[in-house]
């Protein structure tokens, strides 16, 4: 099997960069700002970050993704059951993706 030192260095570079980002974040978790404004903003973090993560992806997927996202959210709200909501979303996506252009 090929053993390419440059490739291994590149993998090490990626691994190190990624771990530093992960570690930096966890390190920051313990050092929350004392300012009330920043502390309140942290309360909004999970929702805001998830919306930011999902909105461009859902929009880019077009009508099937948008509709399936709506179905997932609706079922999750109605049932409060994660696996049920996920299955509903995936089934909706599979169905819509084969029907819609």
């Amino acid at each position, binding site marked *: *099997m090929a053993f*390419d030192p*440059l*490739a*291994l260095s*590149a*993998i090490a*570079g*990626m*691994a190190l*960069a*990624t*771990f530093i*980002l*992960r*570690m*930096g*974040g*966890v*390190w*920051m*978790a*313990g*050092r*929350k700002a004392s300012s009330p*404004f*920043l502390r*309140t*903003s942290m309360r*909004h*973090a*999970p*929702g*805001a*970050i*998830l*919306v*930011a*993560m*999902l*909105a*461009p992806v859902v929009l*880019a997927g077009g009508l099937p*993704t948008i509709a*399936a*996202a709506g179905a*997932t*959210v*609706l*079922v*999750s*709200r109605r049932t*409060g059951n*994660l*696996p049920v*909501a*996920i299955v509903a*979303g*995936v089934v909706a*996506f599979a169905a819509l993706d084969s029907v819609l252009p």
Partner: protein
Amino acid sequence: MEPSNPSTTPTSEAIMSRAGLVRGFRLAAAVAPGVAGAGLIYGALCRAAAVSGTEAALKSVLVAAGTSQFAVLELWTRPVPLLSVTVVALLVNARYILMGAALPTWFGKLPPSRRWLSAYFLCDESWALSARDYREGRADAGILIGTGVAVYISWALGTAVGYGSAGSLRIESAPGLDFLVPAALLAVLAGFWSGGRTALIPWAVAGVVAIACAHLLPGSWYVVLGGAAGMLAGANADGV
């Protein structure tokens, strides 16, 4: 990985329990097929792109960040552009900073080894699926780590099987599988909705800023900037 026995450490907070690890594992069951499926495709693409088996395995085990691994596939020519792939990893994984910072404060009080473990197993899925428990005040790093370990194993095994069977595998995902991880994240997000103007404003701002930034900036900066904008808008709407 050996879960430590909390009864041997008489300190007050049970901050990484076996029960938490098990709970994390079970939370991850919902997304594991999607992650393994993505790993399968990744492994097969690595083989097609003339990435060696060792390299593909090392990337999934050491980098363990799918989006960035997919992103550098196109760049993986010989000689491998060391600086470019490292910069791409930094750009694509920048969101981990904000996600880590948003973890509960007690993560900072964990013993260093457990903080390192938490960081290593921090990924989109483990962070999102454990977020609900952490909002409800469960102080147990095991939930994040357990979810992360299950996702990690799915990803690594998927990569190995995909690489090994690339010749016989038709690269075509099962219908709907592409939507499995987004669906899990959406289902978690829906549970966070508290209604009213103070809930709508941060989400609307986060969404609009992220969509705009996704067109303008490389990597995952749209998550960082959209998330940060939403957080600040939320605090502003709360009138702090």
